[in-house]
C-alpha cells in the first residue's frame, strides 16, 4: 500500500517537472522561398524565457523536412554568428535540435532565433512533362504548421514564389487554431495564417490530428540544374608548384521532361526571337578561383570548343579573392527537361595561392574548396578526392561539413613508384552554398621530394648498364 502511494506521488512529481516549459514562442514566422532545385526556408521564433537562465532552446522538424534539409544555419536575429546546434535524431517522426542561446537571461526576457535552412528535393516540376513550346511550372509541397516542443501564441507561414505567376495554391480544409482567413495571396506571396494558441506540437498526436498539407504551383523562370554525380579530384604537385582541380560530372536538367521530340528548327527560331522557354538549358557558367589557367572542357567525344574562359590574375594566399575567373560552358546540345550531359571540367592553379608551409615541422597545409558550384544547382552525389605528392606522411584531412565517409588510398599516376597518398570524402545532396575549403595537412621529407628524379635516373642507369654489358659481347662470326 505504501509503495503504491509513493510511486503515485513520484509519478505526479515527475509529470509536473516535465510539464514546466523553459520557453514559450510568442510568435513563429516561417518564410518559404521555393525555387528550382533548392528551397530556402527561414523560420523566426520569437522566444520568451519562462525559467531563469534557461538557454537550451529546442526546435523541431518533421522527419520528412529533416531528411530534405541540406544546410542549416541558426543565429539570433540581426547577428550572423552561428549558434551551436546539437542534433537529437528522429523520434516518432520528429527530429529535434538543441541550440544554445546566450547565457543569463532573466524571466520574461525575449529574443529572436532565426533558423535558415536550404532544402533539396522539395520542389518538383508540375506538370511533369512539357513540350518545347510550353512553360515550366514547379510545385512545392509542405506542411501548414511549424512544430515546436513549446506552446505558441501565434504562427504564420509565407510562401514567396520566385515570380507572381502562381498557377494554383491549395486551401487547407478543417483547420484548427484559425483566426479569420486561412490563406491569402498578395502578389507573389501566399500567407497561411495567422494561427493562434497552438499547444505543444512536436508530437505524433498533434501531427495526426492537426497537421495539414500545403502546396503551391508556380512558374519558374530559370532552368532547374542538378548534378547527379560529381567526382572532384584535386592533385597537388610540388615540382610544378601546381594544384590541378578536375570535375567529372553528369549535368541533369531537373525540369519537366520533354514531351514529344526535340525540333532543332523550333529551337533555333526560339533562340533567334529570344523566346527560349525556361526549361531549356543551353549553357552553364562557373566562377573559378583567381589565378586559374589552362582550363579544359572535355567529354567522351573529346574537347568541347564551345566555351569561354576569362581568367583573372592570381591573388596571394593571405588576401581574399575579390574577383573570380569566369568560365562559360556550352554543351554540345541544349539540355531539355530530363536530359543528361556528362563531361569533365578542369583547371590548374598556382600552389602558392592555396598552400601554406610550416618550416618548424615541415608540414604543408593545402586548402581546396569543396565545390565550384553552378548557381542554384544541387549536387546529389559528391566524391571528393585530394591526391598528395608521392611520399607524403602524416596525412590529416579537415572537412567543413561532416562527410558520409572518409577513405585513405593510394593513387598511381605519372612517374610514380610507390604511389601517391589520396584521401576521398563522400557527400550527398549539397547546395550551391557548400563552398568552404577542405584543409589537408601532410609532411613531405626532402628525400621523398626527390623520389621521382631518382626513379627516372634509375631507369636511365638501367639503360646504361645494358649498353655496358652489350658492348662487351661479341656477335661477330669468326672463322672456325
Amino acid at each position, binding site marked *: 500500500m505504501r509503495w503504491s502511494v509513493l510511486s503515485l506521488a513520484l509519478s505526479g512529481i515527475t509529470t509536473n517537472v516535465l510539464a514546466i516549459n523553459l520557453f514559450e514562442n510568442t510568435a513563429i514566422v516561417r518564410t518559404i522561398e521555393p525555387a528550382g532545385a533548392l528551397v530556402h526556408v527561414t523560420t523566426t521564433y520569437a522566444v520568451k524565457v519562462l525559467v531563469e537562465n534557461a538557454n537550451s532552446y529546442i526546435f523541431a522538424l518533421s522527419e520528412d523536412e529533416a531528411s530534405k534539409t541540406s544546410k542549416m544555419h541558426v543565429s539570433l536575429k540581426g547577428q550572423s554568428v552561428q549558434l551551436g546546434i546539437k542534433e537529437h535524431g528522429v523520434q516518432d517522426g520528429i527530429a529535434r535540435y538543441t541550440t544554445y542561446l546566450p547565457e543569463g537571461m532573466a524571466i520574461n526576457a525575449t529574443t529572436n532565433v532565426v533558423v535558415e535552412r536550404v532544402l533539396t528535393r522539395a520542389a518538383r516540376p508540375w506538370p511533369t512533362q512539357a513540350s518545347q513550346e510550353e512553360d515550366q511550372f514547379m510545385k512545392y509541397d509542405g506542411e501548414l504548421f511549424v512544430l515546436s516542443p513549446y506552446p505558441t501564441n501565434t504562427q504564420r507561414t509565407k510562401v514567396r514564389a520566385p515570380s507572381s505567376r502562381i498557377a494554383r495554391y491549395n486551401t487547407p480544409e478543417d483547420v484548427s487554431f484559425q483566426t479569420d482567413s486561412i490563406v491569402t495571396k498578395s502578389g507573389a506571396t501566399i500567407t497561411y495564417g495567422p494561427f493562434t494558441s497552438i499547444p505543444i506540437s512536436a508530437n505524433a498526436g498533434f501531427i495526426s490530428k492537426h497537421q495539414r498539407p500545403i502546396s503551391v504551383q508556380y512558374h519558374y523562370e530559370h532552368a532547374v540544374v542538378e548534378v547527379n554525380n560529381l567526382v572532384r579530384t584535386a592533385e597537388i*604537385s610540388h*615540382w610544378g608548384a601546381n594544384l590541378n582541380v578536375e570535375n567529372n560530372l553528369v549535368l541533369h536538367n531537373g525540369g519537366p521532361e520533354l514531351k514529344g521530340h526535340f525540333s532543332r528548327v523550333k529551337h533555333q527560331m526560339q533562340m533567334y526571337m529570344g523566346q527560349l522557354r525556361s526549361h531549356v538549358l543551353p549553357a552553364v557558367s562557373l566562377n573559378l578561383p583567381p589565378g586559374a589557367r589552362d582550363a579544359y572542357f572535355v567529354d567522351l567525344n573529346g574537347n568541347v570548343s564551345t566555351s569561354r574562359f576569362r581568367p583573372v590574375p592570381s591573388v596571394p*594566399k593571405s588576401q581574399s579573392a575579390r574577383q573570380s575567373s569566369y568560365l562559360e560552358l556550352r554543351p554540345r546540345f541544349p539540355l531539355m527537361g530530363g536530359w543528361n550531359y556528362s563531361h569533365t571540367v578542369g583547371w590548374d592553379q598556382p600552389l602558392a595561392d592555396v598552400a601554406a608551409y610550416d618550416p618548424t615541422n615541415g608540414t604543408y*597545409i593545402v586548402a581546396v574548396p569543396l565545390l565550384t558550384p553552378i548557381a542554384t544547382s544541387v549536387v546529389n552525389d559528391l566524391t571528393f578526392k585530394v591526391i598528395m605528392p608521392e611520399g607524403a606522411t602524416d596525412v590529416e584531412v*579537415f572537412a567543413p561539413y561532416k562527410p558520409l565517409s572518409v577513405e585513405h588510398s593510394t593513387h598511381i599516376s605519372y612517374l610514380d613508384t610507390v604511389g601517391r597518398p589520396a584521401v576521398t570524402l563522400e557527400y550527398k545532396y549539397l547546395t550551391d552554398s557548400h563552398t568552404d575549403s577542405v*584543409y589537408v*595537412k601532410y609532411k613531405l621529407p626532402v628525400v621523398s621530394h626527390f623520389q*621521382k628524379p631518382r626513379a627516372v635516373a634509375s631507369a636511365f642507369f638501367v639503360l646504361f648498364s645494358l649498353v655496358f654489358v652489350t658492348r662487351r659481347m661479341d656477335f661477330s662470326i669468326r672463322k672456325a
Partner: protein
Amino acid sequence: MADYETVKHLHQTLPAFAPAVPVSLLPSLASILLITTFGLAFYFTTLSKDTFPAREIGVALTASALGGLGVVALFCTVGVYV
C-alpha cells in the same frame, strides 16, 4: 588533434608554399639538363672498354642523375605537373 578552425587559422597565417626550383626556370632547366644528358650519353658510347670501368660508371651515373631531373622538369614544362 587540431580542429577545423585551428587549421584554417594556421593556413591563413603560415607562409605560402615556395617550390624548390622557381617554376619559370623549369623549361630552360629541362632543355639544359636533357641536352647535357644526351651529350654525356654520346660520350659514354665513345669510351674505351677498360677492365676497371671507373670512367664509364662515373659518366653513366652523372648522365642518369641529370636525365632524371631533366625528365621531371620536362613533364612540368609541358603541363603534366608530376
